[in-house]
């Protein structure tokens, strides 16, 4: 304030010093009315000068964030809608609780030329079939109950008596368990009933059974995937007659999911393939060398611990007369919440002869869990149907069922059939409504959230759309 008594720098420098107004530091009659106003203004300005930072400081922690976060990553698998029309329908009563359907297939169980759906219900521990009446309505029949988590059913006339029996792989527990809770069950058809026999017990969790004459003696032997948990095996069971089977170990490894049988080397006998997915992620072949002897061959291995092998089927995908393999990867059940991974999908193992295979990745479907091969669009080549267990289910558009259209040269284009129900683990194709077009059936296994868009057994009947 010392400057009050000094020269006013705003005044004109031309003003003579005698005329320079010397302000009275106390008051003058001339400026009395103006001064309080300017003083008030000064005080107000000073207050504002202090208040602005103060208010900012006080408000600082409470200032809302109005900016947009970086766009969220989206790893879900979504594809263009199917050009083929399908009509979906849920089987059985409305789903109230998360279902656990471990296996579905389309099979003519009773030999009346009307195919049925056979499903393993691992939640209710039963085996059921669904039969379509002439009015198009489906009727559920319980074939067997109290089965301690059935994982897979194989329909075969094991006793060669002209009717179809059912072999059931009993997991014993849907969740990790290394104790001897598994069984190989035979449901022997006897008229309208099934008689239950235990063919093998005191084993760890059994995931798959397949039947075929493995030792060339004319009867049906069994291939068995003892999945276990930390320990497991691949077995073949030699049929000794009268429902007695001797077990032989082919491989000691936990986590075998599938053990399909096929003549992989074209020598006229059945070989065995094993899809191992636990400590190791491997595909093994067991070359049948005759007389119940097998030569073990490692066909493929992934060093990616996390790839999550989930399914293996055999099929001559390229119609060249030999047996190829289709392998799905996408199982991440070790996580409480899962997410589709860029390496998930489906591999075609093209059989090039002499136990050699060329591996082609034909799908990137996240959480892919099972495959089925059929000529869906009627153009004479094999298409592939895939289901996903672990897509990004928080997004409504994520695909749960897709088909891969084959251009005839094994170049595939994805088409999305459905995004619900979610968590599909098993799929089969066949002509359910006998219209000459393949239909689809799939099963849902809901053990990991979100528990929305639930489904048990669901069919997609093909419509009369754009077929070639």
């Amino acid at each position, binding site marked *: 304030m010392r*400057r*009050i008594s000094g020269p*006013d720098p*705003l005044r004109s420098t031309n003003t003579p010093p005698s005329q320079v107004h010397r*302000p009275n530091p106390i008051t003058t009659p001339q400026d009395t009315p103006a001064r309080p106003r*300017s*003083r008030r203004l000064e005080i107000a*300005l*000073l207050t*504002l*000068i202090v208040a*602005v*930072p103060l208010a*900012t400081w006080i*408000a*600082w922690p*409470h*200032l*809302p*964030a109005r*900016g*947009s*976060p*970086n766009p*969220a*990553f989206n*790893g879900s698998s979504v594809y263009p809608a199917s050009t083929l029309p399908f009509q979906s329908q849920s089987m059985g009563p409305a789903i109230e609780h998360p279902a656990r359907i471990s296996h579905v297939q389309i099979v003519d169980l009773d030999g009346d030329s009307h195919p049925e759906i056979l499903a393993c219900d691992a*939640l*209710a521990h039963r085996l059921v079939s669904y039969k379509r009446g002439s009015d198009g309505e489906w009727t559920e029949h319980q074939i067997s109950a*109290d089965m*301690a988590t059935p994982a897979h059913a194989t329909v075969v006339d094991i006793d060669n008596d002209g009717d179809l029996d059912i072999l059931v792989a009993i997991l*014993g*527990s849907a969740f990790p368990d290394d*104790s*001897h*809770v598994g069984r190989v069950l035979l449901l022997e058809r006897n008229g309208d009933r099934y008689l239950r026999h235990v063919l093998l017990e005191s084993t760890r969790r059994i995931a798959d059974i397949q039947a075929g004459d493995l030792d060339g003696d004319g009867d049906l032997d069994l291939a068995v995937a003892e999945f276990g948990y*930390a*320990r497991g095996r691949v*077995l073949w*069971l030699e049929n000794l007659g009268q429902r*007695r*089977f*001797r*077990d032989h*170990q082919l491989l000691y*490894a936990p986590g075998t999911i599938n053990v399909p049988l096929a003549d992989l080397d074209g020598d006229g006998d059945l070989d065995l393939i094993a899809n191992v997915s636990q400590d*190791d992620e491997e595909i093994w072949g067991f070359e049948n060398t005759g007389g119940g002897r097998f030569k073990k061959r490692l066909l493929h291995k992934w*060093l*990616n*611990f*996390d790839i999550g092998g989930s399914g293996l089927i055999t099929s001559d995908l390229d119609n060249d007369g030999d047996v190829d393999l289709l392998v799905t990867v996408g199982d991440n059940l070790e*996580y*409480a*919440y899962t*997410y*589709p*991974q860029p*390496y998930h999908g489906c591999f075609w193992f093209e059989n090039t002869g002499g136990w050699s295979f060329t591996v082609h990745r034909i799908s990137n479907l996240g959480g892919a869990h099972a495959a089925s091969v059929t000529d869906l669009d009627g153009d004479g080549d094999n298409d592939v149907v895939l289901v996903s267990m672990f897509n990004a289910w*928080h997004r409504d558009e994520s695909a749960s069922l897709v088909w891969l259209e084959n251009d005839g040269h094994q170049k595939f284009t994805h088409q999305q059939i459905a995004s619900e129900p979610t968590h599909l683990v098993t799929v089969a194709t066949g002509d359910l409504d006998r219209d000459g077009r393949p239909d689809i059936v799939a099963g849902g296994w809901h053990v990991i*959230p979100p528990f929305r868009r639930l489904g048990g057994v669901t069919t997609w009947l093909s419509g009369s759309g754009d077929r070639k």
Partner: protein
Amino acid sequence: MRRSRIILLIVLLGIDVAVFGWCIFERTSRPAPPRPPAAGMVDAETARDFRRLWVLAENPGPGDLLALGQAYAVYGFFPEADQCLEQAITLRPESAANWFWSGLVLNRLGQTARSTERLLEAARLDLGRVDECRYIAARNHLRDDAHQKAEAELRLIGPNHLAGQYLLAYLLVHTDRSTEAMPILDGLIAEHPEVHRLYQLRARAAEVLGKDEAARRDRETAERAPESIATDAVADHLGERSYEFGLESRIVGAGHLNTPGNLDSLANELTTILSISYRPRIARLLARIELRRRQPDAAVTLLEQLIQRDGATADTLIELALAMDAAQQDPLQVFLIFQQALQYRLDPEICRLMAPFIKERSEAADVDRIEALQKHAEGLQAFRANRLELATTLLEAAAPIAHQRQAESNFFLGECLWHLDRRESALEAYRRCLELRPHHGRAAERVERIDRKGEG
């Protein structure tokens, strides 16, 4: 003079407003944390916790964005967790936890290269996490089919990180370098003789090297080694944090009520939790509390609902049978439920619980059979825990009795005796097994092997 002061003050105020206005603009322009998921994606309690954390993260103190990111991650909202953790890193790049959790979340999103970068930065900031970060980074490299990079990372991991050492040995075995893997596996087995996966891997290596007998021995030992290796590091980290957020956190809080004087409060709290979101393990726990509160009918109802919703297991069936027994329901029904449980799992506890019912209703031979079955089940447990002397005693008691697993009792008795070097007795036990079940593959294989080599 006064005018000039006023002008000066106006200029100052202008500067003030400009500077602080810019600050406020910048502050409000910062990215908002990602919104909690829509209603229906999670239960109401978790949604409330998400909102609470979101409000904190909107004006984040240290750790608030990290907490929201962790909450999203443990409930499976990985893209949203990624967004949170990006912001957390921007705000606090010095926090190793921010980088580490970002690395975990990116791993779950399949963004392996970014995940590895984040993890290695976390390792740089926090030396205590180095081995863990390198292990997950190695797994990321394997997911990218870059096994050489994975191996390089694993070779930097300290010798005390069992999962890392195991994975290194695994890589060596699976890239045709079993000879190099052998000394690593020998060292690990010497330090961790109870871990079955080490024997399984060494068996694989031995087989590759043509040492079939050594491979067989290791596989037999693996059957009796009870411990495993925690190789799913990311899943474990996510699981460990799940109890800090949402309904899981409330469940942990309910656990603190579990004292004899608080049973009513605990039952009320668990009932509320079940009404918010049905959790099978909470239903089981509540059923147990109801039994302790002498409310067996309520326990029966809870367990019946549980079995209908989540499927029966041996454990839930045992608990249902016990609740039905406490509720004085028809003993025959109780017995049948125990019997069903026994079909699901051969468990000595089920046998023990069934014995009184059998004593009341059946002949002495049936009592002997169930007691023998109990000893058989206990013997198997002892065998798997590598307690061979105890297993032998139990199986010797079970083997002569005609129970439903008598052949197996003899087989496992043979296994125990074989590993105890009592070869003659083992051979006898295998042969008894084959008398009872001529097509018992493993017993036949043992006898053939002994006969072939004259090992007996």
